[in-house]
């Protein structure tokens, strides 16, 4: 892989890491304030929430888990700021669909990106199946779906207030025409949503 491709891969990875850092930091604040609000509302109004279950030990454990993840994220802030000096570019996504910007790849090579599944809710999500479509270009080029692999393709459980990385590998056929290729990742847990994939296939330097 050329240095340019390595840098683009690094940028895409870093953007994902910063997004994860933002989410985890925000989840930590929510945890703190959940307790503050419970106390404050009970104290000022003196009125219990009708039908509101008290948060049990299981919920506390899940939230504590999130807190630990946040600590791990917080330690990486300095490392991320250093990395950003060299590489982060302002626009790594597009509006509308969430987009995974894969690093540009030469034909015949394999590129890797990642997407993050976030469960910001207090409820675990079970049996999440992921599927990827093939990638198409505006000039009619097609990278078949079996050249796009996700790892893992199934999550048995995505715990409450947690996240999981899914690796996306695309093997670009040797004779693939250069251009921008678009595809989708869909999830059984959110059938109305899709995540876009964007890959730029480049000619190998020196190719005719």
């Amino acid at each position, binding site marked *: 892989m050329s240095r340019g491709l390595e840098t683009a891969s690094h940028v895409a990875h870093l*953007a994902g890491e*910063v*997004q*994860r*850092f*933002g*989410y985890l*930091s*925000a*989840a*930590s*604040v*929510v945890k*703190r*304030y*959940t307790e503050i*609000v419970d106390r*404050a*509302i009970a104290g*000022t*109004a003196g*009125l219990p*929430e*009708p*039908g*509101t*279950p008290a*948060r049990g030990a299981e919920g506390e454990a899940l939230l504590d888990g999130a807190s630990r993840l946040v600590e791990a994220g*917080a330690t990486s*802030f*300095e490392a*991320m*700021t*250093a990395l*950003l*000096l060299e*590489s*982060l*570019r*302002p626009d*790594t*996504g597009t*509006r*509308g*669909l*969430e987009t995974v910007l894969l690093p540009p790849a030469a034909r015949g090579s394999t590129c890797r990106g990642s997407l993050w599944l*976030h*469960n*910001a*809710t*207090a*409820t675990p999500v079970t049996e999440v199946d992921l599927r990827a479509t093939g990638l198409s270009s505006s000039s009619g080029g097609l990278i078949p779906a079996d050249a796009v692999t996700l790892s893992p393709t199934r999550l048995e459980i995505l715990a409450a207030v947690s996240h999981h990385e899914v690796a996306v590998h695309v093997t670009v056929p040797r004779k693939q025409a250069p251009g921008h290729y678009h595809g989708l990742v869909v999830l059984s847990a959110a059938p109305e949503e899709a995540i876009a994939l964007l890959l730029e296939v480049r000619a190998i330097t020196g190719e005719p």
Partner: protein
Amino acid sequence: MSALGPRFLEQLEDYASRARFVAASYLREDTFSPYLEVPAAEYLERGGKGLRPALCLATCSAFGGEVEAALPSAAAIELLHTAFLVHDDVEDDSDLRRGEPTLHRQYGTALAINAGDGLAVLALGALRDNERTLGRRLAGRVWSEFDLMARHTVDGQARELGWQRDRRTDLTPDDYLDLIMKKTCWYTTLLPLRVGALIGSRGALDLEPMLRFGFFLGAAFQIRDDVLNLTGSEAVYGKEALGDLREGKRTLMLIHLLAAAGPRDRKQVVGYLALDPAQRSGEVAEHILALMDDHGSVAFAAEFARGIARAAGVAFEEAFAAAPASPARRFIRELVTYMVERDR
């Protein structure tokens, strides 16, 4: 995230104008001196986007309530928001609000502060009306939500002003998030959502998921606002460009810059923050902005917010799981997109 529907802006304006009309009616009911009524009415009528009252009214409707039942609360939210803006502009010595001179520039600081006080007092009357329409018990719970919001908001504002006064340069993203939870999220998203849900469900709904959704939404909104203050056009955004930088606000971009810059650049930033706001010229502010670009600080904040915005989309589904499909529910889902991707 989903795209905005064709009727979204029309619906937003409809909710906002209904709340604004009720808010203005509290001002008209009393015989106030023109020294109070004119500046207070002027600010109220300038008409912002009306996101807060719209969020309250739509949430009430999504959970099966009549929009009318939440109108006094939505009006109180708009009155308090306007009161906070008046005082905020005085504290920050801002020149522009919603594309026009701030109230203290127009009427003088003393009358502006008093108009802000007046708007806040009128909100109390709106909340008192809840007793009549919602009953004492539910009105009491709504009152508790406003009480909690007001405490956090003034505490958050004090914290931000204190950081500026004490020239703090040792802050982290966690400090920033904690700040915006208090100074922005409570009154911008949490209160409207929680009060709307309380009224719509007649107090039956568990409000904890609203805390999660409200914070993710409010945080993504505030970071977007901070980025727009640096990159947005003054004509479109309605506030003076680089206003936050000139005030020395500890935004996520500034915190990132302080952490990412090498000793030489960091010294320049710290020196800039040590200046009195009047000494922070546009030229020097532009230089700090250039440093932010060089060090990836704006890009960092944009990605950080994107991560939180994604979480807001997920948290919405949880918070509104009990709300059946309806135009109001769809409006709120679209509002998430609107608030985190807006350019003004």
